[in-house]
């Protein structure tokens, strides 16, 4: 017996409109990045002119490189710390300071960025730290490790605990059981966490504005100052490149997690 579809016409319409709303603006932006006309809204034929412009814009390229470096390093540190935090929260049972710990991890998820940014800057000033690459990286790590922790924790929570018991039953001590069974099984979530951290860092304007120093602007800071002066076709090109980069990251990461899940135990770290 086949189940009758539960979709009503209203459901279909709201889905279609919703997705159109989400995608059309981005699509339009991408299309106009190939516009030959200087006027952003007049179609002047296909052209790569604005991409050339971008690649000759040294300041913009430098900002993009800075953003990329910050995103890679902060995402990597955040993935390490966030995964450790998730393990402690989902496998540590009760321990002293647990409530404070989970509080500190969940609050930044919704905390307005102006608050996080300002407070970190004041810390860096008080510590007399030189502001630039490292301060932004630390700030982004602080924000994004919370997202990693949540992603990994929810995967750990849904994992069948009897798999870990089976590993112990078959001769693993707890650490060994974690490394040979749990870790390979949560690897996709860890990869997803890294991707999320990477894009959040690449994306952030507010926290970076507070915590960076003179001469080390990130890409969003540059884009923001250009956008405030009005729409420029070059910005469309940059945005398209960023979207393409993120798309590549998503594809690579999902391929990697698929690959790791189709290999045997040899793929496991131990």
């Amino acid at each position: 017996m086949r189940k009758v579809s539960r979709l009503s016409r209203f459901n279909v319409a709201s889905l279609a409109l919703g997705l159109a709303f989400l995608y059309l603006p981005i699509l339009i932006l991408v299309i106009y990045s190939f516009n030959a006309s200087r006027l952003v809204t007049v179609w002047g034929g296909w052209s790569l002119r604005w991409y050339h412009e971008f690649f000759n814009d040294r300041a913009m390229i430098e900002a993009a490189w800075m953003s990329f470096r910050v995103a890679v390093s902060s995402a990597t540190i955040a993935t390490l710390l966030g995964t450790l935090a998730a393990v402690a929260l989902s496998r540590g049972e009760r321990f002293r300071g647990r409530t404070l710990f989970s509080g500190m991890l969940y609050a930044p998820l919704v905390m307005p960025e102006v608050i996080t940014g300002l407070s970190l800057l004041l810390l860096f000033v008080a510590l007399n730290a030189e502001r630039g690459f490292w301060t932004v990286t630390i700030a982004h790590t602080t924000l994004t490790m919370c997202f990693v922790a949540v992603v990994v924790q929810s995967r750990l929570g849904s994992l069948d605990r009897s798999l870990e018991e089976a590993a112990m039953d078959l001769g693993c001590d707890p650490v060994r059981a974690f490394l040979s069974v749990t870790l390979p099984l949560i690897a996709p979530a860890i990869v997803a966490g890294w991707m999320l951290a990477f894009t959040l860092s690449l994306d952030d304007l507010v926290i970076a504005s507070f915590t960076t120093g003179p001469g080390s602007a990130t890409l969003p800071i540059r884009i923001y100052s250009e956008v405030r002066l009005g729409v420029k076709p070059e910005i469309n090109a940059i945005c398209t490149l960023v979207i393409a980069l993120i798309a590549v990251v998503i594809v690579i990461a999902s391929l990697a997690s698929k690959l790791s899940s189709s290999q045997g135990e040899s793929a496991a770290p131990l």
Partner: protein
Amino acid sequence: MTDELPRTGAAADAAGGDALPAAGQPLLRIEGVAKTFGTFRAVDGVSLDIKAGEFLALLGPSGCGKTTLLRMLAGFEAPDEGRILLGDKDIAQALPHERPINMMFQNYALFPHLSVRDNIAFGLKRAGMARADIAARVAEMVALVKLEGLEKRRPDQLSGGQRQRVALARALARRPQLLLLDEPLAALDKKLRENTQGELMELQRRLGMTFIVVTHDQEEAMTMASRIGVMNAGRLAQVASPRELYEAPRSRWIAEFVGDVNVFDGETRLRDGHRLVIGTRDAGTLVVAEPREPVGAGKFSIAIRPEKIKLSRRAPVSEVGRETTINIIDGVIADICYLGGTTTYKVKLDTGGIVRASVANSARLDVDAYSVGQQIVAWFTPDDCVVLPS
């Protein structure tokens, strides 16, 4: 037979054709084990000896503590009280990976990221076996559970029955002294379950291993186990062979839990040699055989299995003589339940009580069957009755 595993158990020796440990020496001794979760006493002072080579079933309703007891043997829970002796060593507080005991999990807990081969080899690698020995052992296990050709599959590419076999092979691979099985057949459908029961018994006999299986299915326990421990509310209510459990239950609760039963409450009227005469409210005066351990006067419950009760249109001849006394009660057929192999009749007694009688359908065409409303006589012998403390 050379064996790389440091913790080779009696079972491995048995498989190699060697002798079992000295008779009378239990493999595992559980002594006054108790476990409390919060305020709930899940296991409440259980003592039990498990002999090498036996197939023991722990049977009981859900929440009776059987799974907790099993998990304490595996090392996933530590008892609050009592000792668990394996040989002379108390392993009650040992961690799971330190015990020569393996477990087959209810949901199998197969590692989804590993192939059948790697699942089976998992425990062997942890024991530090040489590569070639692991390969040989895995091949042996695969053959044992008839999974040849599926070694490279992943758990999600297997059927339920195949998964069950992988779980079994994985748990057996380390040649544990004791194999624990937590509801091993619960996830299989009925036909497959019956076949697998037979295979498990055959395997256990062939390997000469000691199995402890937890189940809530009494038919399964009866079929497979040589001994059954019935648990209720954290305690062992009775440990006995399947036949003894069914025919000589120790309490009313066990009689009602294992199989179907008619119970009449009554009081001793008379003691006549090894016969007791008991007056009941529902079934009048009954003559029953005195139990093995003599009982005093007082209130008792009389339990009679439905298949021990015979039905006929007219009362059989019952001499008042000792050996041939028959208990006869009159009633009316109130309900008929045809079950294929047997038919269960509900007989309404004149006193208002109900008796269930199960009759084998030995003939295909039963032209002479009883019908609802028909006056009838139900009868049974004193030896069919079990006297239980009230």
